[in-house]
């Protein structure tokens, strides 16, 4: 008990300090030295850059025009130009709606139905997250393009074809491809936590099934759905490569401009845009956190039994099967198309793309990318980031569920890695780490594995936090109190009682954290510059050429390696008797 108190008093704060130190060094410092350029003009603090952007009609459309002359609000009603920011927010909103519509039924199937391979399917929900944009682009063109699977099927049925590529719809669909599984996973975890007796009580009091669902289940799912929706909105808002690859420059987002201006060495505009992006995302996060704090879901003591997915035809099953068909088209076909592309050459079936990978492994020069090195590095970084991101994320979730002044501010800042432009993070790492920082006449440069793992962990822990917070907040306070009154230290209660109760959330967070690390490209390629610390996505990028084969083969290796890892992560979690 004495050691318990010691851990309480020293351990948690010490851990908190370590977490803050990692965040400060690997995130706030590099981002800070770049973003400061947005508010400094000729060495002086000035809002000029930001104001110029806000006043530009190209960026802010009607808002900028109205700042100049409010009359336009009337004159041009209702045909308001959105501007780059407006359009970016608009497509993010559509993407969020699409992801929720596609993700929540998925959660229902995962949480309420039993079918062979259910756990594997659940493990694989994080798979889209690791796919580099070029792979998704290839998969989507092969699925939804002019000569894609969908249009071929429509033609065979004698139906009119769809012109989807380079439209807003395809961007929304691609964002849903990435983010709907996230929503499904988070929501499924919450759904599994709904106590069967609550619904049964409602039903016994005369509520219809629909009414019971609306009044009893939905309120308990809402925090999870909204968490997923918030993350989806932010990711879609910051989207860049996939927008340009599938939508084209006509559908450019703000992040496209951040990258463009950085390439032109115009750091003022780039950082000004990134600052506005960040402020918008953080404001949204803050608003959401205020809502989340009011929610108190209860965790299940007895989850409702699962139904069999396959069996006699009922209206529910029919609807669920229809959903599964749509999900297969959106998630499975693009991935399958990529697999197919990797074994197809000009003359039909071929294994030469995989032979290429083997040859590269055997014959590549030391300065060239080798597939096996990429796989090993990816796994090492993934495990390393997991080892840092999970404790960090859980700790911040614990902090987030305790009452203290400024909590929501800390909570909001903890989400900053999602809210800051990836281009800016990359630039910060380049300047602060790779080029180095001068301290007392010494230049300290940091690159290689440690820096990459730290950067990945910082980009990944918010997943853990956001998955754990709702579950942690839902734990019955009386359990904690009785354990405390029986003499358990706060730390012991956390480790023995609270954590086991929130393991589904931790696992879901861990899977996405791992996925973020495996799929990360921008920071990795910068920190691995000139060395052999490259990862699988970097290898894919290197293997892009006239033929799609080599890159898609590497893409399939990436998918296979991560798919196995996901299953292992989930099984390990369950093997410890903790899974749901």
């Amino acid at each position, binding site marked *: 008990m004495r050691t318990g108190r010691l851990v309480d008093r020293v351990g948690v704060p010490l851990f908190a300090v370590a977490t803050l130190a990692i965040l400060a060094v690997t995130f706030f410092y590099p981002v800070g030295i770049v973003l400061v350029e947005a508010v400094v003009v000729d060495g002086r603090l000035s809002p000029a850059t930001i104001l110029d952007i806000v006043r530009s009609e190209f960026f802010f459309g009607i808002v900028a025009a109205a700042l100049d002359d409010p009359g336009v609000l009337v004159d041009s009603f209702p045909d308001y130009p959105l501007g780059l920011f407006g359009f970016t927010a608009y497509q993010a909103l559509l993407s969020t709606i699409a992801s929720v519509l596609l993700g929540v039924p998925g959660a229902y199937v995962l949480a309420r139905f039993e079918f062979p391979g259910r756990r594997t399917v659940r493990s694989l929900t994080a798979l889209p997250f690791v796919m580099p944009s070029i792979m998704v*682009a290839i998969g989507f*063109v092969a699925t939804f393009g002019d000569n894609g699977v969908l249009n071929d099927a429509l033609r065979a049925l004698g139906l009119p074809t769809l012109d989807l590529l380079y439209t807003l719809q395809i961007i929304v669909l691609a964002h849903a491809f990435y983010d709907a599984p996230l929503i499904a996973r988070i929501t499924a975890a919450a759904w599994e936590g709904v106590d069967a007796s609550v619904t049964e009580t409602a039903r016994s009091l005369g509520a219809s099934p629909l009414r019971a669902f609306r009044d009893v289940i939905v309120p308990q799912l809402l925090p999870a759905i909204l968490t997923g929706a918030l993350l989806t909105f932010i990711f879609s808002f910051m989207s860049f490569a996939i927008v340009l690859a599938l939508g084209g420059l006509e559908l450019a987002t703000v992040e496209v401009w951040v990258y463009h201006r950085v390439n032109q060495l115009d750091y003022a505009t780039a950082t000004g845009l990134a600052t506005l992006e960040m402020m918008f995302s953080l404001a949204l996060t803050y608003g959401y956190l205020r809502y989340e704090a009011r929610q108190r879901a209860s965790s299940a003591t007895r989850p409702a039994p699962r139904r069999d997915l396959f069996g006699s035809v009922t209206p529910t099953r029919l609807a669920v099967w229809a959903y599964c068909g749509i999900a297969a088209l959106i998630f499975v076909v693009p991935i399958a198309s990529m697999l197919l592309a990797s074994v197809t050459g000009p003359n039909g079936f071929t294994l030469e793309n995989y032979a290429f990978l083997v040859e590269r492994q055997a014959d590549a020069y030391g300065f060239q990318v080798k597939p096996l090195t990429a796989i*090993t590095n990816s796994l090492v970084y993934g495990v390393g980031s997991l080892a840092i991101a999970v404790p960090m994320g859980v700790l911040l979730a614990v902090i987030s569920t305790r009452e203290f002044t400024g909590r929501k501010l800390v909570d909001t800042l903890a989400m900053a890695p999602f809210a800051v432009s990836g281009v800016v993070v990359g630039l910060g790492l380049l300047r602060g780490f790779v*080029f180095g920082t001068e301290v007392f006449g010494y230049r300290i*440069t940091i*690159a290689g594995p440690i820096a990459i793992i730290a950067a990945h962990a910082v980009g990944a822990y918010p997943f853990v936090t956001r998955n754990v917070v709702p579950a942690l907040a839902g734990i019955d306070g009386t359990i904690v109190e009785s354990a405390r009154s029986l003499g358990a230290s706060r730390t012991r209660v956390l480790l023995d009682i609270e954590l086991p109760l929130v393991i589904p959330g931790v696992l879901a967070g861990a899977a996405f954290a791992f996925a973020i690390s495996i799929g990360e490209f921008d920071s990795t390629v*910068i920190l691995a*510059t000139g060395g052999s*610390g490259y990862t699988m996505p970097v290898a894919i990028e290197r293997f892009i*050429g006239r033929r799609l084969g080599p890159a898609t083969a590497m893409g399939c290796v990436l998918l296979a390696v991560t798919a196995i890892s996901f299953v292992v992560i989930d099984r390990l979690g369950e093997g410890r008797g903790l899974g749901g």
Partner: protein
Amino acid sequence: MDRRRFLTTAGAGAAGLLTGCSVESTDSGGTDTDAAGTTTDSGTDSGTAEGTVTGTASGEQPTLRVGTYGSFVDAPSTSPGGWLKEQFESEFDATLEWFAPDGGMNYFLQRRQQGVTIDTDLYLGLTPETLVQADTATEGGDPLFTSVDSGALSNANNIVDDYRFDPQERAIPFGASYISLVINQNTLDERGVSQPETFDDLTTSDYEDGLLVPNPQNSETGLEFMFWTIDHFGEDGYLDYWSDLVANGTEIVQDWGSAYAAYSEGEAPMVVSYSTDQVYADQSGADMAEHQIGFPNGEGYAYLEGMAPFAGTDRSELAVEFMNFVLRPEIQAEIAQRNVALPAVDNADLPADFDDLVYEPDEIVNFGYDDLLGNVDGWLEEWSQQIASQ
């Protein structure tokens, strides 16, 4: 040498997970800071190379560090980097070290802007616009590149005049390609139309939804295609032309990779790429009808590549020897084939079957240094804003 040897020691001492981190005094002359403590060399195996420089253990052999772009040293088809290194090292008592940072030239410019030393001796792969960008960014300060005495380059007289782009002769051309349309004749046959003859043809209904362009913001290929339209329609006319192009369904896509991938999937019958396309098609046994080369109005935009020593290199002599070596006719011929491009000199003998597959336009179009100076950012920004608002 001191920097390099110091790092070898430091790297060995800081083994394990801390590899890649380095602490160095900035007092000792100020030119001794290493890029990232991560330099690789051929022969070193994966995962262990960070923080150490291998291959210089003898201490006698000088190392020439050459910056370049990724596909020059590591492309899925062929790349000249490895071969060039072996040849150079077999002839000279020196080590050639490739350094291909993400971001290419911008990486070095950013180092300079942040007041960090360059630590690289030469850059291979300069285009006119990157040179202009470098000079603009370093205006008023020390230039990033220096020139060499062209008398020391024995084959310099044979460099194709059209390929020279630096009035100060710092950048010496070592290769060229032509930007062109790559056309899928099979798809056009299905439409019942022939190949487009002119730029204006591309805006007609025959070629609706017909063209994919790599985004000039992210791709040199796309950027030079945009320059080409400025050359053809003038500064006052190119935006109108693009307006028509986009209205006709031309798509401006992420980068060359995703544009070419979508083209390969049959998403559009034409893509902006290079006139060397058939060399690749021939290698993989593809249908040549899907790899026809189109030069609108008989023109092709010359994509020029040059090399220049970084100002402040302490390996000037070796750098000159390397440039002299690269310009030799037989080396030029080999680089051209391995990079699937054209040599920059007129006395390199290419095998006939390679020559047959590489197309050259009737008329070469190219913006030189002076055409580009002070213009690139403005042209690109106006163009970008128009497309994104369309």
